[in-house]
């Protein structure tokens, strides 16, 4: 498995990276951790004439918690997300999910930016970001703009990010809500058969906020507004959870693949969403 030739660029700042993208149009592609892109290039399924490696752009590696907002640079790796104590405290959901992504070696190089920008519905981070109601910062020729994670994904590999834009950072509100990332997969390193991210806030015995998102159950990540709404205002009893699960499933549209047929995926999705809700509740 040998990739085709390409021109390699390693810009030192976002501006130069953007101008490279602008110059080469859809023949250029940003390289972050590379563990989705490089195998596809080696298989010669991805044709990239200009590879823009953003590893030297220091600003993309920064992450900080300021006030109520968590900022994570696009080049922060999953390994760092797991081992950064302040991030783990501000967003334990991300740590829990990161531990379930790929394998140790891949987590050393796999970045949060690559994971969310790739647009692969099987990636774990997009659903998480939708659950957290994250905002992505995109830099392009005309400056920076932001897009909500919940509005970013159009279909498999098609996102709101233009060919000449780079996703530079992610921001979301720090939360003390009960959390869970539940994922069923065939083995370490596999994509999810079904996965769910859940955040639940309880005010006394009543649910005051709930956010539920799912991975690999449609051609985009699925944030189910209805599922969250089914819990808010209730005491999250069995019937309420059942209603939330049903609402969540209603928003999915899984396809058959080697992980199993649609019927199975739907069923598992229901189980996984329920488990995630129950675990998040136990931590709320």
């Amino acid at each position, binding site marked *: 498995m*040998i*990739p085709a030739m390409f021109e390699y660029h*390693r810009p030192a700042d976002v501006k130069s990276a953007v101008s490279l993208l602008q110059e080469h149009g859809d023949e250029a592609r940003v390289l972050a951790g590379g563990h989705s892109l490089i*195998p596809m290039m080696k298989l010669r399924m991805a044709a990239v004439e200009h590879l823009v490696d953003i590893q030297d752009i220091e600003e993309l590696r920064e992450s900080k918690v300021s006030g109520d907002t968590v900022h994570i640079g696009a080049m922060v790796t999953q*390994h760092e997300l797991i081992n950064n104590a302040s991030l783990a405290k501000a967003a334990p959901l991300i740590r829990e999910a990161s531990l379930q992504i790929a394998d140790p070696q891949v987590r050393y190089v796999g970045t949060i930016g690559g994971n969310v920008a790739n647009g692969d519905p099987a990636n774990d981070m997009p659903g998480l970001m939708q659950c957290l109601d994250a905002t992505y910062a995109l830099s392009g020729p005309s400056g920076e703009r932001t897009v909500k994670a919940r509005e970013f994904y159009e279909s498999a590999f098609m996102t709101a990010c233009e060919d000449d834009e780079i996703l530079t950072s992610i921001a979301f509100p720090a939360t003390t809500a009960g959390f869970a990332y539940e994922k069923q997969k065939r083995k370490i390193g596999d994509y999810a058969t079904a996965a769910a991210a859940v955040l639940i806030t309880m005010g006394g015995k009543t649910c005051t906020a709930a956010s539920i998102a799912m991975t690999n159950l449609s051609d985009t990540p699925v944030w189910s507004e209805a599922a969250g709404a089914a819990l808010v205002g209730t005491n999250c009893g069995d019937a309420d959870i059942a209603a939330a699960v049903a609402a969540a499933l209603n928003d999915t549209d899984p396809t058959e693949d080697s992980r199993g047929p649609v019927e199975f995926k739907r069923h598992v999705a229901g189980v996984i969403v329920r488990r995630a809700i129950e675990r998040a509740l136990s931590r709320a």
Partner: protein
Amino acid sequence: MSKMHLKLKVNGEEKELLAEPRELLIHVLRERLDITGPHIGCETSHCGACTLEMNGKSVKSCTVFAAQANGAEITTIEGLAEPGTMNVLQNAFREHHGLQCGFCTPGMITRAHRLLQEIPNPTEEEVRHGMAGNLCRCTGYQNIVKSILAAASEMNAAKEAAE
């Protein structure tokens, strides 16, 4: 397509060569620098036979372009101990029969080496999770896990003795 000037520090030695940006790090090491310890098993970053250490991280070198590695510090199995000697981990793999055909072994030991840097006193579960990026077709992992746990104890004992 033009070749680029590549500078690497491999097992403590500075190396310079011309390479196409697309060359994979595993090929640069194996075919240009004759460092054949890391192997190619799956080519899609699933098996870990090509694992080495790059800038303090365990990395699957079949999924790294030479260009990306430019300027990096790399340690392979060949750099874990003085040539002709075996370090604690290497010895533990031998002692506890942690290898059979030997093909996954360099990646396995290189990965375990980093794991023990980060978690010096791991549980069996931590070892199994920490080694889950490396496939072995021969051993069923039981003796690999045993080897790593034994190496950890030995290293910890040596550390305590030194303190």
